[in-house]
């Protein structure tokens, strides 16, 4: 079975600063996908960024980037130039083949003006 752990229940960051959210996972699979989802107060889950495990290069989407350490089974999310609209719950998730998508418990991020 796959497990996903987010060890930071809550974090805060000053507007325009950089913040890193941690995620570790456990799996015996070699080919898999990792995701960060954002859930703002509107409760709509939005995909922020995706990483395929077979790719060594870290994924980047504008202000969002990941630090994927496959051997350490670590997948952290870095948000640069934080904006007020980044305030949300962030969930790390793991998917492989036909296995169910497994989520961490989430990190509540508050961006402070």
């Amino acid at each position, binding site marked *: 079975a796959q497990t996903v752990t987010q060890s930071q229940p809550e974090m805060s960051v000053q507007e325009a600063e950089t913040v890193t959210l941690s995620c570790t996972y456990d799996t015996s699979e070699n080919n*898999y996908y990792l*995701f960060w989802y954002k859930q703002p107060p509107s409760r709509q889950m939005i995909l922020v960024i995706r990483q395929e495990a077979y790719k060594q290069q870290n994924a980047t989407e504008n202000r969002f980037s990941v630090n994927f350490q496959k051997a350490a089974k670590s997948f952290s999310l870095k948000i640069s130039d934080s904006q007020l609209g980044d305030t949300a719950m962030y969930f790390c998730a793991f998917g492989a083949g036909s296995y169910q998508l497994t989520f961490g418990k989430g990190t509540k991020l508050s961006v402070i003006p």
Partner: protein
Amino acid sequence: GAGVSQSPSNKVTEKGKDVELRCDPISGHTALYWYRQSLGQGLEFLIYFQGNSAPDKSGLPSDRFSAERTGGSVSTLTIQRTQQEDSAVYLCASSWAFRGADTEAFFGQGTRLTVV
């Protein structure tokens, strides 16, 4: 439609009544998930359908909860004899199996269930 659709958006029911929550996944997606989210909390896995395989029901909290997926498309989550602790947002998601480069899970906006 283009996305995952859930209905109703909000449901208020009396304790002891049965409720049905509906999810229309993205057409062609083989995988469908139901999650429960209590206020300010994470996602609690309930049930997972993948193609024609038997569903993974390991997350259903009690035998009052059941779900079906008809014709590999629409899914209905049924809660019988609702209790106040069932109050939560119920989220549905769908995806392809995680093999393709662009695979991701798409979520509906959820159904907020309130048991009074």
